[in-house]
C-alpha cells in the first residue's frame, strides 16, 4: 500500500532540488565563486574607514611584491644569474615589474634636490646653518677639497653651499643593501656570499586563485635553474604563503573529504550488505549542494576554509539516513517508509538541535564561522529533506538484512556497561568523571594567536627571516596613523612622535622608521632658513678665498630665497620621495592624515606607549587587535554555548519533559567538559577553535542522547545506531585533526574527543516510556 504522501513528497522534493541546482548553475556561471583571502575571515574589528584604507595601503606590497635574493660566492656570477632570472620573470607575464638593477633617473634626482634645498635639508644641517654659520662654511670648504666625498649629483657651480650633498647624505639608509655602481644591482654581503636583490611585483594579488600557484611554480623552476649554476635563491612574499595555503587546502579537502566519503561508504556496505544502501550518500551530496548555494547567496562567495571545515558536514549529514537504516536490526522485515515514520520525530528534533548548535556559531564576530554555520545549517536542512522525502522512495522495496556482528558488539558493550554499573553505581562514576575533569581543567591553558590560522611550513618562514636578516628590510605589520587638521599640524605631530621613536632607535628597540617629516620641513622651518641666508655673507669669506666669485654666491642666495615653500604634495614629486609616497593619505574628513611605518620592531607594547598623550597619533596593530578579539570571543563563545543549551532544553521539554530535557542537554555538556579536561591532560592548549569544536559537539551529541533515550528497537540497537552515527561523524571531523593548519587540526582534535565522550555518556540519557 502506498500512501499519497509517499508519492507526493519525493516529487515535491525533486522540484526543489531542480530549483536549487538551477540556482547553483547560475551562481557558478563565471567560474567557482571561491575566495582565499584570509583577511576576509578574521573579525572585522576596524570600524574606521581611514584606518582600513591605511591598512590596505600597507598590506598591498606584502600581497603583491616578492623579494628574491640571488646568492653566489662570486659577485659577478650572482649579478649574472639575477639578470637572467629578471629577464625570464619579466617574460613570464606574471609580473607587472621585475627589477634587479637600479637605473637611476639622475636628471630627475638633480631637479628634486635643487628644488628641495630648503624643504629637504635635515634638522641637524638646518640648525648648523642657522646657529653656526662659520662651521657650516668651514665644512663646505673641507668638502670641496675632500677627494673622497663621493660624487655629488649636482655640480658645485649650481650649489656652492653644498646643500644638495647634505640632503643626499642625510637620507635614511634603506636596509643593508648597497648599490653596485658597475652593474646597478643592489647587493648585500652576508654568509660569505653576495646577494643580489630582485623585486618583482605581480599583476594580481595574493588572493587571486591562480596567480600565487603560478608564481610559486616559477620560483621553484628558477630555484632549480639557479642551483645548476651554483647559485642559491631566497624568496619572501605574502604570495608564497597564499600559494602554500591553497595547495594545502586542496590537499586537505581531498584527504578529509575523500577519506570521510570512502570510510563512510565502506561502513555502510559492511554493515548493511546491500549495494543500494550506498544511496544513503545522496543526502550528503544534497547537503553539500544546499550549503554551497546558501553560502554564495548570502556572502557572494565561499571561502576555501569554509570548504575545508564544511567537508566535515559529510559525517553529520549521513546520520539522518543511518537513523532509520539502523532500525533494520530490530525491525524485520524492514521497509523504508514505516522505518522513517518511526524515527521521524527523533530526526526532526535532531535537525532542530543541530541547527541551533551550528547557528550559535553564526553570532560570533568571525566571518569564517558565520560562513561555516550557514553552510552547515543549510546543508543539514538539505540532507534532512532528502533523507525524509527522497531516500525512502529510492530505497523502496529494498530488504535490509544487516550483518549481525555489529549488533553483537553493541550487545556486548551494553552488557559490559550493565556489569560495570552493578559494581560501581552511577553517582560514583560521576564523581570519578568530575575528578578527572577537575584534574584536566587544572592543567588546561589557553592560547590564541592569529598565526594558528596559517600553517606556514618552516622552510618559508626561515627563508623570509633570512631575507630580512640579509637585506635589513624588516617591515612590521604595525604602524602609526597620524591625523591632523592641516599639513602643518600633521608634520608637527609626526615630529613629536619622531622624537620618541628616535630614542627607541638609539636604544636598539627599533631599527628605524619612515615619516613624512623626514622628507619635508615645516613651512616655518623653511622660512627660518630663508631668513638665516641673509646673514651668510658675513661668514663666507673662506669660500671667497678659494676663488668662488661673490656674485655667484649672492645669486645663489637670491635663488634659494626665491624657492617656494614646499608642501607635502610637492615634496613627494621626484625619485627620492619614493619610500615615503605610500605614507601620505592626503586630505580626509576635513583634515589630513599620514602613516609612519616601522622597521625591525621587537617590542609591540613599547610602541603602544609611544602614542600616549600625543594628539592625533594612533598605533594600528592589526595582529595585536586580532589576538585580543580572539580572547574576547572565547568568552562570548562560551556564553553562546550556554544560550544554545537553554534553547535546546526549551525545545526538548515538549517531547521529554523538563527532567528529560535537562538530562539530554547535561550529557553533551559533561562530554564537552571531559574533552576540555582531556585537552588539559594531553597538554594541548585551549584555543578559540577547540572551543568552537566543542560548541558543535554539543549540538551533534544531543542527537545521541535523544537516540538513546527514545530506544526504538531496544537498547543495543539504539547503541549501535549511535555508534554508527558517531563513527561517521568522527570519520569526517577526526580527519581534520591531521590538517597542517593549527586552527583546523585543533578543531578536529576537540571534536574527536567530544564525540568519543558523547558516545560513552549517551546511554545515561535514560529511557523514555512510549505510549505505544
Amino acid at each position, binding site marked *: 500500500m502506498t500512501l499519497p504522501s509517499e508519492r507526493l513528497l519525493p516529487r515535491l522534493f525533486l522540484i526543489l532540488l531542480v530549483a536549487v541546482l538551477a540556482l547553483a548553475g547560475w551562481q557558478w556561471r563565471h567560474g567557482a565563486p571561491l575566495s582565499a583571502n584570509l583577511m576576509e575571515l578574521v573579525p572585522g574589528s576596524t570600524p574606521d574607514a581611514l584606518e582600513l584604507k591605511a591598512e590596505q595601503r600597507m598590506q598591498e606590497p606584502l600581497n603583491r611584491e616578492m623579494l628574491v635574493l640571488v646568492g653566489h660566492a662570486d659577485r659577478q656570477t650572482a649579478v649574472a644569474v639575477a639578470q637572467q632570472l629578471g629577464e625570464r620573470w619579466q617574460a613570464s607575464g606574471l609580473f607587472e615589474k621585475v627589477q634587479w638593477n637600479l637605473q637611476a633617473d639622475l636628471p630627475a634626482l638633480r631637479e628634486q634636490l635643487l628644488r628641495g634645498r630648503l624643504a629637504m635639508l635635515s634638522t641637524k644641517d638646518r640648525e648648523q646653518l642657522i646657529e653656526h654659520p662659520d662651521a657650516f662654511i668651514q665644512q663646505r670648504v*673641507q668638502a670641496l677639497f675632500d677627494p673622497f666625498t*663621493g*660624487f655629488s649629483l649636482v655640480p658645485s657651480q649650481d650649489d656652492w653651499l653644498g646643500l644638495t650633498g647634505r640632503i643626499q647624505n642625510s637620507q635614511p639608509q634603506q636596509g643593508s643593501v*648597497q648599490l653596485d655602481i658597475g652593474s646597478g644591482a643592489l647587493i648585500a654581503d652576508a654568509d660569505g656570499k653576495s646577494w643580489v636583490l630582485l623585486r618583482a611585483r605581480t599583476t594580481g594579488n595574493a588572493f587571486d586563485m591562480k596567480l600565487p600557484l603560478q608564481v610559486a611554480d616559477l620560483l621553484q623552476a628558477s630555484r632549480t635553474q639557479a642551483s645548476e649554476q651554483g647559485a642559491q635563491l631566497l624568496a619572501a612574499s605574502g604570495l608564497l604563503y597564499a600559494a602554500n595555503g591553497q595547495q594545502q587546502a586542496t590537499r586537505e579537502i581531498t584527504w578529509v573529504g575523500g577519506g570521510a566519503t570512502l570510510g563512510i561508504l565502506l561502513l555502510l556496505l559492511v554493515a548493511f550488505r546491500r549495494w543500494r544502501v550506498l544511496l544513503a550518500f545522496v543526502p550528503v551530496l544534497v547537503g553539500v549542494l544546499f550549503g554551497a548555494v546558501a553560502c554564495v547567496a548570502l556572502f557572494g562567495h565561499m571561502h576555501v576554509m569554509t570548504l575545508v571545515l564544511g567537508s566535515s558536514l559529510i559525517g553529520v549529514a549521513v546520520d539522518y539516513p543511518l537513523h532509520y537504516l539502523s532500525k533494520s536490526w530490530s525491525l524485520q522485515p524492514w521497509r523504508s517508509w514505516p522505518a522513517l515514520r518511526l524515527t521521524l520525530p527523533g530526526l526532526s528534533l535532531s535537525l532542530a538541535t543541530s541547527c541551533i548548535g551550528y547557528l550559535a556559531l553564526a553570532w560570533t564576530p568571525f566571518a569564517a564561522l558565520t560562513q561555516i554555520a550557514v553552510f552547515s545549517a543549510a546543508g543539514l536542512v538539505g540532507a534532512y529533506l532528502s533523507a525524509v522525502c527522497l531516500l525512502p522512495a529510492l530505497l523502496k522495496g529494498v530488504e535490509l538484512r544487516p550483518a549481525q556482528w555489529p549488533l553483537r558488539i553493541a550487545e556486548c558493550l551494553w552488557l559490559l556497561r550493565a556489569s560495570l554499573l552493578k559494581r560501581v553505581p552511577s553517582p560514583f562514576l560521576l564523581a570519578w568523571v568530575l575528578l578527572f575533569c577537575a584534574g584536566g581543567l587544572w592543567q588546561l591553558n589557553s592560547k590564541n594567536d592569529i598565526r594558528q590560522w596559517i600553517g606556514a611550513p618552516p622552510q618559508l618562514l626561515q627563508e623570509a627571516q633570512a631575507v630580512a636578516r640579509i637585506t635589513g628590510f624588516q617591515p612590521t605589520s604595525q604602524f602609526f596613523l597620524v591625523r591632523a587638521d592641516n599639513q602643518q599640524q600633521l608634520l608637527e605631530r609626526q615630529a613629536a612622535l619622531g622624537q620618541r621613536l628616535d630614542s627607541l632607535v638609539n636604544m636598539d628597540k627599533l631599527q628605524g622608521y619612515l615619516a613624512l617629516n623626514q622628507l619635508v620641513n615645516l613651512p616655518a622651518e623653511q622660512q627660518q632658513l630663508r631668513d638665516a641666508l641673509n646673514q651668510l655673507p658675513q661668514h663666507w669669506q673662506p669660500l671667497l678665498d678659494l676663488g668662488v666669485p661673490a656674485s655667484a654666491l649672492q645669486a645663489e642666495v637670491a635663488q634659494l630665497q626665491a624657492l617656494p615653500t614646499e608642501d607635502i604634495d610637492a615634496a613627494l614629486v621626484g625619485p627620492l620621495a619614493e619610500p615615503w609616497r605610500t605614507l601620505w593619505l592626503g586630505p580626509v574628513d576635513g583634515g589630513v592624515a599620514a602613516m609612519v611605518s616601522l622597521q625591525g620592531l621587537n617590542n609591540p607594547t613599547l610602541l603602544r606607549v609611544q602614542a600616549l598623550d600625543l594628539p592625533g597619533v594612533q598605533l594600528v596593530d592589526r595582529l595585536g587587535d586580532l589576538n585580543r578579539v580572539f580572547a574576547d570571543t572565547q568568552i562570548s563563545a562560551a556564553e553562546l554555548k550556554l544560550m544554545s543549551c537553554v534553547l535546546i532544553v526549551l525545545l526538548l521539554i515538549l517531547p521529554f519533559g523538563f527532567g528529560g530535557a535537562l538530562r539530554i542537554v547535561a550529557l553533551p555538556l559533561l562530554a564537552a567538559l571531559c574533552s576540555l579536561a582531556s585537552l588539559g591532560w594531553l597538554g594541548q592548549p585551549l584555543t578559540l577553535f577547540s572551543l568552537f569544536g566543542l560548541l558543535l559537539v554539543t549540538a551533534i551529541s544531543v542527537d545521541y542522547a535523544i537516540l538513546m533515550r527514545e530506544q526504538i528497537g531496544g537498547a543495543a540497537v539504539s547503541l549501535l545506531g549511535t555508534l554508527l552515527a558517531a563513527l561517521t561523524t568522527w570519520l569526517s571531523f577526526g580527519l581534520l585533526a591531521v590538517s597542517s593548519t593549527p586552527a583546523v587540526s585543533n578543531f578536529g582534535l576537540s571534536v574527536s574527543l567530544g564525540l568519543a565522550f558523547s558516545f560513552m555518556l549517551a546511554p545515561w540519557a535514560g529511557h523514555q516510556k512510549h505510549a505505544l
Partner: protein
Amino acid sequence: MRVLILFASLILSLSAHAFDLQQLSDQLAKPSVIHGTFTQEKHLRALPQPLVSKGTFVLAKDRGLLWLLKTPLQQDYRISTQGIARRDANGWQPLPNKSAGAEQNRLFLAVLQGDSSGLQRDFDLQLQGDATQWKLTLTPRSLLLKQVFTQINIDGGELVQTIQLLETQGDSTVLRMQDSTAGQPLSEAERHDFAQ
C-alpha cells in the same frame, strides 16, 4: 738598413705589446708599503683656478691608504676595505657608507694597487707604453658609471704617478703622487692609524 729598422721596430712593438695588464698588476702590487707626497688639483668648471691642496700619503698592501691633507687645510683620511674614515678630535670617524661613494673608494684603492681584475669589471681598460712609462685609460661600461665619469687616466712608471678623473659634469680632479718610495716600512704611528 731598412730591414734593420723594420726589425728593430718589430722587436720594440713586440716588447711593448708584451707589457700587459697582468704585468702592470704584478708591478704595482710588488711593494708592500709606499710613502710619498701628493698634489691634488680640483678643476671646477666655474672656477678660474683649480683648488690645489698638498699632503702626504701612505699606501700599505692589504691595509689600505692614509691620505693626509696638509695645506691649505689639515685633514686626515683613511680608506680601507671597511670603508672610509675621517679623523677628528675624537679619532677616526667612519663616514656614512653611501653606496655610490663606497664604490668609488673601492675603485680608488683598486687603481693604486693595480688590481686590474677589480677594475675590469666596471671599465674598459686600455694600456699603452712599457713598464717604465705607461698610461692606463679607463672608460666606464655601465650606464650608471657613465653618468658619473667620462674617463679616468692613470700614468706611471714603477709606481702610479698621476690619476686624472674626468667627471661627466665637467669637473675634473688630478692627483699627482711625487717622491714615492717603496723602501720604508710602516712607522709605529702609521701602523696604529691602520689598526684602529
